[in-house]
């Protein structure tokens, strides 16, 4: 294992300390670990997200004006615990409630739900929206369902802007759910990655192999194949996303009228000719930005062939898996509301415009 670390046991804390030194507008807290934008969300909905570390800049890099109020990092590839989201929630609550944005991994979902219960016991209103946009997984009936990928970044951006515009908690939760069903993603890996605590690669992959449909913790994808060209890889990922059929699954959400968690059936969109989308071409960590441009060019071509127009794009490192080489593609169908909120000013370590 070759890593720029001091001690494998302490990486999360050391890296959080460094994050705090680098960004003076962000406060870093330990025991429990979380980061928050300086100053509470006064008279507006507060946004809290989080997940395992190792996906930077997700989520701490998206804390700041116009995006998240707080982020809760777990250990590398391990979900954060409810005490983190509980303390972060109390810190940033501005009296209008909290929206939790949660990627669909069993640990993340359960820990955020418990935190929501604890906050509610303190009289703080919480909504909890799950992002499950990974089209690599076709079936949800006998699994924990599709995983959360790049749509998370767009949801955090759009909902952050909505909070500043004065959306109330139910409106912002509805918006977040809309972004989720408008977004589809898929990733692939050329190499594995190594978590500091394990010290050995998360999975084995041959020099001439690639894994299509990889998860951000190195979970198996849909297919292990001989390595292909950038154009062929992009064609595969983009086609899976653009031709993905409507996906129906059961998601758990808080019902404030019933005062209980309820299961709700949710169906996402399919892309149609004439759609306008926000596209993310994301490095899994080890793939250089230069290679992402090759992917982006092909993506624009494939989308165009489907009559889908990319109206905004992000090309770079947005939701990574340590040093894994590979790429993920996200397409989020826009409408006037999503595009207006996406274009609104944002000032975070990893996303900044209009300021």
């Amino acid at each position, binding site marked *: 294992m070759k890593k720029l670390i001091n001690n494998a046991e302490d990486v999360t804390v050391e890296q959080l300390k460094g994050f705090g030194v680098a960004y003076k507008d962000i406060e870093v807290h330990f025991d*429990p670990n979380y980061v928050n934008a300086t100053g509470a969300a006064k008279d507006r909905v507060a946004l809290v997200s989080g997940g395992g570390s190792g996906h930077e800049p997700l989520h701490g890099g998206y804390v700041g004006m116009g995006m998240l109020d707080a982020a809760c990092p*777990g*250990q590398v*590839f*391990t*979900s*954060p*615990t*409810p*005490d983190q989201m509980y303390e972060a929630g109390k810190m940033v609550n501005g009296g209008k409630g909290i929206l939790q944005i949660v990627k669909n*991994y*069993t*640990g993340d979902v*359960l*820990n955020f*739900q*418990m935190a929501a219960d604890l906050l509610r016991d303190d009289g703080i209103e919480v909504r909890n929206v799950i992002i499950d946009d990974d089209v690599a*997984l076709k079936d949800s009936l*006998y*699994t*924990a369902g599709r995983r959360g990928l790049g749509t998370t970044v767009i949801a955090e951006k759009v909902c952050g802007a909505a909070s500043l515009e004065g959306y109330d908690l139910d409106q912002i939760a509805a918006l977040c759910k809309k972004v989720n069903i408008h977004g589809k993603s898929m990733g692939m890996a050329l190499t594995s990655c190594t978590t500091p605590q394990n010290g050995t690669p998360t999975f084995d992959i041959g020099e001439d192999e690639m894994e299509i449909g990889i*998860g951000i*913790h190195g*979970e*198996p994808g849909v297919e292990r194949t001989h390595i292909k060209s950038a154009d062929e890889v992009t064609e595969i990922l983009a086609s899976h996303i653009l031709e993905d059929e409507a996906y129906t699954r*059961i998601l*758990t959400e808080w019902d404030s009228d019933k005062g209980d*968690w309820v*299961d709700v059936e949710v169906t996402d969109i399919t892309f149609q000719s004439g759609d306008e989308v926000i596209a993310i071409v994301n490095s899994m960590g080890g793939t250089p930005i230069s290679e992402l441009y090759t992917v982006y060019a092909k993506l624009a071509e494939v989308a165009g062939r489907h009559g889908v127009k990319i109206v905004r794009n992000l090309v770079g490192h947005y939701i990574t898996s340590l040093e894994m080489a590979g790429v993920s593609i996200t397409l989020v169908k826009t409408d006037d509301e999503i595009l207006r909120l996406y274009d609104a000013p944002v000032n975070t370590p990893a996303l900044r415009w209009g300021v």
Partner: protein
Amino acid sequence: MNLEDAAARGAVVTGAVIRAWIEKSAQVLAENRRYLSELDSPIGDADHGNNMDRGFKAVLQKLPDGDDSGVLLKSVAMTLISKVGGAAGPLYGTFYLEASKPLMGKTTLTGTEVAQLFDVGIAGVKKRGRSDIGMKTMLDALVPAANAFRTAYDTNTDVVVALSTASKAAEEGMKATIPMQAQRGRASYLGERSIGHQDPGATSSYMIVQAFADAAAGVPG
């Protein structure tokens, strides 16, 4: 009813037994740390034993004095929730948290209250995990244990005997997870490849039920 006599006859569980249960759970999970993580390796992320051991070590450190069963179990819940992580933290946390609620202020539990402890704990896990028996989870050990406990206790009103019966049922339930295909958690993504492996969550649950039976029977630690 004289409580000491009742305890001696196996009719009730004292707060001291609840404390011993927690201590024995910590002990057995520490002894089986590596085994549980090895079970987790082919179908999960090879950390279940480490997480449970770390969690229960912290439980012992933070366990309050006294023999209020509800207070003791709630302390277990809150510590596991903050120390275990993954899915096991909130699921076991929910089990102990829900189990603690009807037992607040109770220093002695009747068999009926022990049955209730299992039932409300299991109901919480089912709800939190959106899961039930047959999905290759901790419920495959806990549910048979609870059912066996109730049946055995209704038959002879001896908590010690009923817990021993429950432990055997949990062990059978644990073994029954081997041919199952996982439908929840990270193992579910493996589909048919999850078949043939004993579920680590069902295994730790069996160990915890066994620890309860040992504590009630006064088996030395």
